[in-house]
């Protein structure tokens, strides 16, 4: 398989040609300003990560792209925000249905420094993420960006939408107030309406025939361990495919054969 040339470094990072007379200031010892470069070189010599990073970060994008193309990144940052705030909320939260869950949320909101803010970011960020992911999905759909060769990216994206909704469902129970409890009861009963396997799925979610002692910890484990791990892995694969396949051009953009920026067809691999 022929090796493709690495994408070019941006101008700012390309080594500058020496100016005449520069040799005068030459030193034999490393300058402090070169320490950062040395550290990066040391890492890169051992990991060879920089070609991959360059491949990921400095890609060519089609002309004519617009702000709608940022919705995927926006969803990614909403996910990162949920992950970070969620990890820190877990430091104060106690998934104890008998006593503790509701009280620990009260404690986060009322006593912990910035607790209400972090809790609020997580709570409202959940809605933001669901809005953004559907806008992103709508953009991909309306621009026809799901078509060949990006079908697998679309399928993974749909799985991510479903997992995001599952995150919303399992997270809704955790504050364990009246609204959380009854919304979850109703949601589990809607789920039980599926013929044959619906009741078994609901029993799995409840951890028994009725809302019981382990239901809350089950939801908590699904919400903060099971689904986030799956989502992180799938997001990684989604991003790999986006980078590998490139970003689709807007549908209204027609190819211009005379455009000097578009290489002739035989140059494509």
């Amino acid at each position, binding site marked *: 398989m022929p090796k493709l040339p690495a994408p070019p470094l941006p101008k700012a990072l390309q080594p500058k040609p020496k100016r005449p007379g520069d040799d005068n200031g030459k030193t034999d010892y490393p300058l402090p300003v070169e320490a950062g470069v040395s550290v990066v070189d040391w890492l890169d010599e051992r990991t060879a990560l920089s070609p991959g990073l360059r491949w990921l970060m400095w890609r060519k994008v089609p002309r004519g792209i617009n702000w709608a193309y940022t919705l995927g990144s926006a969803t990614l940052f909403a996910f990162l925000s949920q992950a970070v705030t969620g990890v820190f909320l877990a430091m104060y939260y106690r998934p104890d249905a008998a006593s503790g869950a509701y009280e620990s949320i009260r404690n986060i909101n009322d006593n912990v420094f910035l607790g209400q803010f972090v809790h609020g970011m997580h709570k409202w960020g959940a809605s933001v993420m669901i809005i953004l992911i559907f806008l992103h999905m709508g953009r991909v759909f309306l621009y026809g960006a799901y078509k060949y060769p990006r079908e697998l990216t679309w399928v993974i994206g749909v799985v991510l939408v479903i997992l995001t909704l599952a995150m919303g469902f399992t997270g809704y129970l955790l504050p364990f107030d009246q609204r959380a409890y*009854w919304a979850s009861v109703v949601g589990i009963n809607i789920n*039980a309406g599926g013929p044959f396997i619906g009741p*078994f799925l609901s029993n799995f979610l409840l951890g*028994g025939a*009725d809302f019981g002692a382990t239901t809350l910890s089950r939801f908590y484990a699904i919400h903060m361990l099971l689904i986030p791990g799956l989502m992180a892995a799938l997001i990684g694969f989604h991003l790999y495919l986006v980078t590998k396949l490139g970003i689709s051009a807007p549908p209204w953009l027609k190819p211009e054969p005379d455009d000097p920026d578009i290489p002739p067809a035989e140059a494509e691999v």
Partner: protein
Amino acid sequence: MPDRRRETKSKYTADRNIPGAFEGETVTRRRFMNLAANGAGAVAVAAFTLPALGFAIAPIFKRQEWEWQAVGRPVDFPANTYMTKVINITPGIGEAGNTIAYIRARDPKIDTEPEDQYNHFVALSSRCMHLGCPVRYVSAAERFICPCHGGVYDFRGMVAGGPPVRPLDRFYTRLNQETGLVEIGPRYSVNNELVRFSPRFPGEPVDGIGQYLYPAQFDTAGKP
């Protein structure tokens, strides 16, 4: 008819000119090593995933435990209105494990289902049979009304309007002869003829095809 287009290969590695083949050998050592290593990996993965999976789904198969709970003397329960009693259906989780039972004495004039030792007192569950919100008994209207989506049940707990798919669930009741108290047992579901079924989730009809679409669960409490 055998496929003659394909050239038949000998099953012996020696006949296929594989270097280092033994006499009568059909699987090369390299291939055997590959299978053994991958198989060992699969066994190791299964050794922790299968128990973990069983651990997670075990509650589906564990039968719910219950005990008779005394709710009052027989004279506490008239036949013409419901008394509200708080009972516990899930121990160990405080308030969240409690539910309400609406209890009255059986009235042979309106309760047409056959009488047995478990329905001298009629105990209705407050769980709405649409999606499980708690219904409230409105004595002036003699109706049970659900606040969520407008389900209405008549005095016997039969659906009188709205989205519920079956009458309100009931509890087994009995009169304890030793203590003289009315006691409440496990919950059961009923169809529109008030035939008893093992407990189902709300929203699952048990008339006609519904009883097959929503089969009995392994983990619900058994008959008393």
